[in-house]
């Protein structure tokens, strides 16, 4: 796709190229506008915002709102800033993303390359789990976390997100590996490679794009999740999204909009970063799946 559009650009006249870039630039500005306003206001003293001018650049630049949001702002009842909750989110998201990706890959490998009776049914059930709304699993999940005695902990959230995500990751990897030539697996079997060796030496090195898809999808969903975080994590173990809500809704004192803006950007930054770093692979992985699978 990228190749085709470059070719078009080369052929078309310089006038229409300028026009195209102009339109693209406009759209980019339009989409960036909210973010820009957040950024600008997070760097102003509160008085400038309450003074009524949200669009203007700060007259007095300050990083005070950022420092406050990070380490001193009132979250619920504690003046801890967002930092501990940011760490909570990382401690929750990283293992959950890794676990669901690894298990999704293994599931996809087994479902496509090691046929066993009932494979289709199991895949169907896993697929079904993708379509169950969050709300339906809340109560059963709470019960299970209670039984496992990890209710209200970050470990509990890791389990919740891993279980909920593995259906999606299995779907991705199954479709990707369905297009992977089975003859390669057979050749490796004859060469004497075992179950995990085939996975690790033959399939995984060719799985880059789909791993990127799984990482991005899982990370964005887990990081941005609010419902599970609010339901299963209490107080000090809450993730970033819940803490952000608590920051904004803290009822004491004046509303520090500049601090809220800074906190919101902090909460969004990791997912943005993941897209910037792995976005190319994301598109490539989705394309590979759609063309081959």
């Amino acid at each position, binding site marked *: 796709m990228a190749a085709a559009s470059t070719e078009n650009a080369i052929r078309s006249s310089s006038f229409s190229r300028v026009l195209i870039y102009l339109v693209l630039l406009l759209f980019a500005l339009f989409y960036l506008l909210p973010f820009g306003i957040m950024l600008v206001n997070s760097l102003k003293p509160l008085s400038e915002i309450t003074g009524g001018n949200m669009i203007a650049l700060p007259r007095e630049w300050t990083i005070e709102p950022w420092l406050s949001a990070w380490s001193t702002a009132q979250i619920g009842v504690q003046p801890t800033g967002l930092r501990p909750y940011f760490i909570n989110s990382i401690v929750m998201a990283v293992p959950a993303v890794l676990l669901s990706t690894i298990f999704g890959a293994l599931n996809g490998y087994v479902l496509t390359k090691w046929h066993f009776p009932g494979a289709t049914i199991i895949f169907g059930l896993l697929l079904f789990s993708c379509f169950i709304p969050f709300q339906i699993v809340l109560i059963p999940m709470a019960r299970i976390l209670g039984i496992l005695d990890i209710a209200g902990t970050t470990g509990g959230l890791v389990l919740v997100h891993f279980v909920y995500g593995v259906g999606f990751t299995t779907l991705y990897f199954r479709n990707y590996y369905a297009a992977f*030539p089975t*003859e390669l697996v*057979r*050749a490796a079997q*004859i*060469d004497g490679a075992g179950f995990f060796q085939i996975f690790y*030496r*033959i399939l995984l090195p*060719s799985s880059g794009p789909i791993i990127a898809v799984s990482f991005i999808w899982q990370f964005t969903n887990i990081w941005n999740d609010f419902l599970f975080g609010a339901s299963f994590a209490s107080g000090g173990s809450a993730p970033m999204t819940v803490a952000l809500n608590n920051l904004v809704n803290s009822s004491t004192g004046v509303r520090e909009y500049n601090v809220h803006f800074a906190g919101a950007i902090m909460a969004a930054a990791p997912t943005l970063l993941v897209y910037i770093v792995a976005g190319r692979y994301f598109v490539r992985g989705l394309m590979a799946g759609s063309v081959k699978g």
Partner: protein
Amino acid sequence: MGFLDIDNVTKAYGAVEVLHQVDIAVEEGEFLVLVGPSGCGKSTLLNMIAGLEGITSGDIRIKDRVINNVHPSQRNIAMVFQSYALYPNMTVGQNITFGLEMHGTPKPEREKAMAEVAKLLQIEDLLKRKPGQLSGGQRQRVAMGRALVRNPDVFLFDEPLSNLDAKLRVDMRTEIKKLHQKLGTTIVYVTHDQIEAMTLSTRIAVMYNGYVQQLGTPKEIYDNPSNLFVATFMGSPAMNVMRVRLEERNGALHAVTTGAEGQEIALRIENAPAGYAAYKDREVILGIRPEAITDPEGADRNARNIQALSNTVSVTEPAGADTFVTMTLAGKDCISRMRADAEVHPGQPFDFAVNMDKAVLFDPETEERII
């Protein structure tokens, strides 16, 4: 007891039996070709030898060891796949030595074995490349290198040439044959191309519908097909088959049919096998290869029973070395193969010479050869 024994092997998927009691004993150094139309079970049989498919009943033995439940990697076989199945993320060198690595061969030995194979197949320059950077023929060589390096008891090939263009296919065919003559390895080779089967094999198993129809040397299969399927499957252009009546005239059996103008044509049969007598005054199927019908000058000098056949020529097709001449016999096209300079003209009558030594008869119901 052969080197590789396929002993009464059957394969069923659920209730459907796709291979029925296959019995083949392969000697050491033999080049056995499994040939047959699509879906006849060739790949299934090969995969069973490789251990990639289970065996429903019967035994497969290599060097007198039953390997039914032995893991593929422990059977001492190597396989070349139709798609070559080269590992895309590894270099050619790593592809070749992967099997040795998995079997725990130390690195210096692996390097040495790889160098030898690379030299044999002339792929020394390619060792550092990835499979994606190779041409079809080069991939084919690498795939063979990967099989050769393990020095297995039996080589298995599943249609290794079908992805190559026509010219390369002929070249690689010769190369495989040379390799076999040089190394003297035991090979089981699957193809649906009967020319590949004829040129490469020391023996051919013709398969159809999950049955081995005939097992024999290329010459046996070609000259003495055991049934109508084998007769028409092997050979290009295919053997002419036509319905004729067997009649006794002047104390000898004749195959009687009609020509293009409805004229009667009777071809005398000499030294008739004992089985022919039972078919006297009945319809049978006569099979005769195109090269057994020629112009009188081009007829085989060693043939004992050449019968003259006068008929109208319908089409001539010069093909360089030969000219294919078509006439109508028993209401169907009958192709003959003549010298390039035979004087034949479409629409004209012509005296064909039929080498009846080479004619074969089949039962019209069972389609089995009458002997």
